[in-house]
């Protein structure tokens, strides 16, 4: 008499355990499926295998562990845990592979850059020689003045088109000299300062002066000067060298100045 309810209660218990098992089973299955899909993808990717073999192996081991555990009862959240770890390893492997591919691409691009720099230097040299002016190769002879700020070279207004920031090709000779000088004096650094006249909006002038200085800096880096050696500064219409009243004075005020450091790389302070 007593046995019947007992059997019933056992049934109930088993039933509820089964239900619980089912719910857990479902999330386990889902986690396993995701982890296994991720693992398949990295396993079949030769780039990932090549660059992060250890991470791929770990992903596989952890996935195996999760799969084994999923066939036992009462493993709680162990299955999802190991599936999670496996997925993370797959993702880490993919990131490492992306990084390696990028690094390889960067190395190739760097070689391209050096090749193009050389070609550019040669073509600028050729064009300067065509003009027959390459003979005078003393940097100091070229519109440089020794000031309290150090050695200063002025690139005049004629080297830019009005309102434009790109350096014209007539500046090639000057720029090549600066590059040559900097290559012969590897410790020296430069500060490139842009200036405008006082016509027009102050803010726009400031921007124009910065952009012109930057474009001179860009040409120097393009020709192989390390950009760490170049500072860029825009001063807008400040520090005129001549009165802004006359057109001639304004033209003199529109300029880019290259300030050279001393031989030890010490630059004068910003103005």
């Amino acid at each position, binding site marked *: 008499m007593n046995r019947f309810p007992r059997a019933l209660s056992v049934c109930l218990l088993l039933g509820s355990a089964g239900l619980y098992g089912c719910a857990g089973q479902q999330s386990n299955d889902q986690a396993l499926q995701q982890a296994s899909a991720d693992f398949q993808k990295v396993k079949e990717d030769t780039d990932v295998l090549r660059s992060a073999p250890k991470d791929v192996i770990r992903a596989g081991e952890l996935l195996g562990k999760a799969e084994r555990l999923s066939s036992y009862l009462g493993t709680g959240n162990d299955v999802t845990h190991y599936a999670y770890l496996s997925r993370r390893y797959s993702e*880490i492997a993919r*990131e490492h592979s*992306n990084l390696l591919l990028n690094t390889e691409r960067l190395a190739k691009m760097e070689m391209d850059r050096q090749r*193009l720099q050389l070609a550019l230097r040669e073509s600028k040299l050729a064009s300067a020689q065509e003009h027959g002016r390459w003979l005078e190769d003393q940097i100091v002879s070229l519109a440089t003045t020794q000031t309290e700020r150090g050695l200063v070279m002025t690139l005049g207004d004629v080297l830019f088109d009005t309102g434009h920031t790109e350096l014209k090709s007539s500046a090639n000779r000057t720029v090549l000299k600066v590059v040559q000088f900097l290559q012969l004096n590897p410790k020296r650094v430069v500060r490139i300062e842009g200036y405008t006249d006082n016509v027009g909006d102050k803010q726009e002038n400031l921007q124009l002066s910065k952009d012109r200085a930057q474009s001179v800096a860009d040409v120097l880096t*393009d020709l192989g000067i390390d950009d760490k050696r170049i500072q860029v500064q825009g001063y807008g219409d400040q520090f005129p060298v001549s009165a802004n009243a006359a057109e001639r004075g304004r033209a003199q005020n529109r300029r880019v100045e290259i300030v050279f450091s001393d031989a030890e790389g010490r630059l004068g302070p910003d103005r």
Partner: protein
Amino acid sequence: MSSFLNSRCLFAAVVLATLAGCANDPAPVEQMKLTEKALEQAKAVGAGEDQAELQAAQAKFAQARSDMTSESFKSARMNAEQAELDARLAEAQVLTAKSEEQITQLNTRLNRLRKQLGESQ
């Protein structure tokens, strides 16, 4: 009949004891150190608070610490293990992003060079 019931009871007791034994994991001291290192390294390369993976790593590590104090060592280990990999993923993501940024920069330079070469020829 009663001996059969008794042996079942015994079996159940053994199973329970085993399960209890399982839950009684040792303290994951080494794993905690590993995770802490992984977090430090991720931050050292510049992983930011805005990264979901780093946030997850920090939250889980905090949970693992409080599990340690309450001596729920299994939970501590699981949280610490997950946090370690979250942190390592965050670190790897930052490094990839940085290299992509470098590629963009170098591309700009290369384009500028090509443009100049095209102009001067």
